[in-house]
């Protein structure tokens, strides 16, 4: 049962197309798990459509119609099936597209004993978009977010002082939030994280890493 959703503000910006690319990808991936938010976004799109139809039209000459008619025989560009699951894999097709494979085919970088990350290129120059893999029962060392962070649980789950999060849950953390997520016992946790500032470890044990934690946006 999904209990944690994007806020109304985030869903509205997503429906209007004004969320940054990497954040939009994370919201879209949540909607793969959450029909309720997919429906809300559908209605928010209807709001956009109502405004669109009510706008004062701008004159468009017949010359433009002629130009378009002349182009109707062009080959349409290739595109992937929208939102469709590929095979039995529950991983959203969008993420499969980005990963071009399954989680075992990603190259993982070890950060601590319990935490590995895999950076994904989205092309968004402002945000770092990664998969996090937390070993069962393992913890991400206490850290704060100087920027905002969006997290989507893909497998397993974790808990921190604010709550307990499972597959499909979407978490948005404001700058200045300090937390130390711990994965549930018995199951590794894989999640998606989108950040615009590097995290900063606040505990003594890992603080030394901070100067080396550069944001890898793009």
């Amino acid at each position: 049962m999904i209990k944690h959703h994007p806020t109304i503000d985030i869903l509205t910006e997503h429906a209007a197309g004004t969320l940054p690319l990497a954040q939009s990808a994370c919201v879209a991936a949540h909607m793969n798990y959450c029909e309720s938010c997919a429906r809300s976004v559908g209605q928010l799109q209807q709001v956009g459509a109502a405004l669109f139809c009510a706008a004062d039209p701008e004159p468009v000459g017949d010359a433009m119609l002629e130009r378009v008619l002349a182009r109707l025989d062009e080959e349409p560009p290739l595109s992937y099936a929208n939102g469709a699951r590929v095979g039995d894999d529950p991983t959203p097709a969008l993420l499969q597209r980005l990963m071009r494979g399954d989680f075992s085919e990603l190259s993982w970088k070890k950060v601590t004993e319990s935490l590995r990350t895999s950076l994904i290129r989205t092309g968004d120059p402002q945000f770092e978009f990664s998969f996090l893999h937390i070993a069962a029962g393992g913890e991400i060392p206490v850290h704060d977010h100087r920027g905002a962070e969006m997290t989507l649980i893909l497998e397993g789950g974790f808990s921190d002082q604010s709550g307990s999060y499972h597959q499909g849950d979407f978490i948005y953390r404001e700058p200045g939030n300090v937390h130390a997520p711990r994965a549930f016992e018995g199951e590794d946790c894989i999640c998606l994280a989108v950040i615009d500032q590097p995290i900063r470890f606040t505990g003594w044990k890992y603080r030394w890493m901070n100067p080396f934690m550069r944001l890898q946006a793009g």
Partner: protein
Amino acid sequence: MEDNNASPPNSDGGKSDKNGWTAPTGRRTDEWSETLVLIGAGEDRAAFSRLFRHFAPLIKAFALSGSALSASHADELVQEVMLKIWQKASAFDPEKAAASTWVYTIARNCRTDMFRRLQKFDTPLATEDFSPDMEHEEPFMQLQTRRSAHRIQELMRDLPPEQTQILAKVYMEGKSHAEAAAELDLPLGTVKSRVRLAIQKLQVQFEQTRDDVI
């Protein structure tokens, strides 16, 4: 829903009247849904030209909104959107979406992609990858979807001007909440709450267990 102005059935069993066309299932569709179906089924250029004459001026207004795109980019956008409509019309299902929502979604996606191209994003993703997949909606939910589109259009007329203004900034001009706040010289919190109030008035539905339901 019987209509006194209905004329005799067409050969496909549907009925036409001045308000639109009733499909044999008894479901009423609007003129533009019918046109999209004609384009999708038969590559009907006359139907396409009719659709163009109605929607291209709206797409152009959308493209020019907020002055983020030049006149030539706006023209480019109009052509791109109309071509996409032609290419995708066979995928349009009048049971699942209103024609206007379908067209708007394509225009919005093309504009967002164009903004990103102009900012030189090098990405494997297109905005159409991010639309919710409504393919598996049950008929009851599809009915709710059609009703909500209708309801939203009706309720839009009763919104107070400052709420319409803020929705226009977000949807028509494509500004984020933060950008809208800067342009209107308002606190971000005020922008967010105006947007929420407007959406509440339009009766957009959200998951009831969430903690930020208005």
